[in-house]
């Protein structure tokens, strides 16, 4: 018997079967012989189990600062849209928010007008989040009911910002600016407060105005902002403290997001990297079926092989979902369909 006591780390490695064969035998013999080290081994086993339970408790709050995550309303898109790049039978889709805004402001305004009336009725389709990833695969837990996401609409604030008429606490309006590191205003950035389910876009000078409704009084709220190609920023505002302005400075993200914003194709040679969470097929008219695929995540870019079919993609920055609608139709018609998904008939 080796009478030298191994240190705690070695005993733990022994318990977790992480020692090379020779050493494992030596420690096993010692532990059999030494009551003190046997006690440490027992303690280590208990600690492993306890620590594992504690770490597991973190998963009970999977959504971080999103309390109402279980069933979430699909937000009205602030201005996200897609640019489609077709090449050799492979379509790579990239979100280019600002480019699209510039390209089609009037169209977007028109759509916003159409959508505004029906917005409260149909923009609030609840999407059931996949259950927490304990089942092992985050993407396979597709929800049963196919919710119909409402496509981009550019009038996010009007309805939501309206305060409840009679609640005693007054609605609080928070204003501010979103700028880049160098102070350049960021138009089209998404500003949101998860706790009260509010989301707005910034205007051409990077300014925003967001309202905490009176029926949801808070001591403090977290104002978050993000824009394609920039890392998200957040700031806490004490609502009762009299401060009504939150300016946010976003740092450029040195990631793929930035590359995507620059228009470079991402990984077109890797189809199916992100399997869709679900696929819903719609019948447009007899004989014409389009397919809507929902992808997890999507920080602003997704790359999916769409075969030869034209596809229209849009991205929901808050729900972290990317939607692709593809079918044997001209792109313009697909885009139009995306805005009218509710009218289509689901084909099983």
């Amino acid at each position, binding site marked *: 018997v080796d009478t030298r006591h191994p240190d*705690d780390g070695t005993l733990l490695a022994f318990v977790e079967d992480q020692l090379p064969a020779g050493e494992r035998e030596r420690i096993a013999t010692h532990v059999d012989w030494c009551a003190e080290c046997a006690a440490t081994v027992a303690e280590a086993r208990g600690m492993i189990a306890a620590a594992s339970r504690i770490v597991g408790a973190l998963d009970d709050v999977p959504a971080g600062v999103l309390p109402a995550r279980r069933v979430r309303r699909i937000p009205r898109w602030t201005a996200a849209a897609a640019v489609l790049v077709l090449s050799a039978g492979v379509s790579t889709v990239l979100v280019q928010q600002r480019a699209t805004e510039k390209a089609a402001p009037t169209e977007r305004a028109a759509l916003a007008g159409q959508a505004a009336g029906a917005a409260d009725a149909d923009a609030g389709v609840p999407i059931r989040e996949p259950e927490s990833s304990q089942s092992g695969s985050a993407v396979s837990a597709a929800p049963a009911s196919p919710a119909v996401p409402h496509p981009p609409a550019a009038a996010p604030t009007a309805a939501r910002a309206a305060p409840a008429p009679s609640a005693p606490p007054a609605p609080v309006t928070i204003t501010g600016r979103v700028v880049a590191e160098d102070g350049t205003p960021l138009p089209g950035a998404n500003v949101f407060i998860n706790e009260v389910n509010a989301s707005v876009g910034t205007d051409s000078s990077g300014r925003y105005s967001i309202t905490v409704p009176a029926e949801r009084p808070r001591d403090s709220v977290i104002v978050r902002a993000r824009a394609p190609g920039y890392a998200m920023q957040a700031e806490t505002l004490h609502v009762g403290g009299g401060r009504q302005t939150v300016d946010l400075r976003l740092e450029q993200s040195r990631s793929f997001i930035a590359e995507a914003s620059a228009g470079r194709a991402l990984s077109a040679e890797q189809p199916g990297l992100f399997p869709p969470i679900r696929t819903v097929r719609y019948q447009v008219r007899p004989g014409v079926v389009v397919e809507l695929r929902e992808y997890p995540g999507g920080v602003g870019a997704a790359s999916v092989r769409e075969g030869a079919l034209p596809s229209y993609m849009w991205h929901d920055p808050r729900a972290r979902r990317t939607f692709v609608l593809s079918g044997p139709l001209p792109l313009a018609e697909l885009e139009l369909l995306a805005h009218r998904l509710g009218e289509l008939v689901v084909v099983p």
Partner: protein
Amino acid sequence: MKDVERLFKAYNAALVRYLTRRLGDRDWAEELAQETFLRALRQGDVENERAWLFTVATNLARDEGRKQARRRRHLQLLADEARVRETEMAPLPIEREEDALAARRALDALEERDRLALLMREEGLNYEEIAEALGLSVRSIGTTLFRARRRLVASYEGLIQEKKGGHKAS
């Protein structure tokens, strides 16, 4: 690395869980996990793919989190406290919310290296992989994990005791 689809299927759930536990924000975690896989596309073959993925994910979290870490943690605590207070919004029994809050605080109290080693171990990485991902020697991993677990358990139990005492007092 070629077969990224296989990597995604094999490791996405673990990476998202690891990052969520590390960052306390699942949106953020999913974002970083996705970026990790995108990076794997551009990466040549590596010896140990799991260690590589966790290394990249850890670095991404560190790079992005360094500047915001302190503030985020503070925000997280505020958010947790707010959520615990708000039974209306809480989807879980209040005890479990409080357990999660205590767990978050106990984990945050660890040193970064101890925390990362523990979270990686919880995702099934072996000592060699953890050593590779964190740039430590394999010999030191046992000690690191022993210390991490003991401190985590001690501060968690301290928080729970404190809370029980508080309930009695009030």
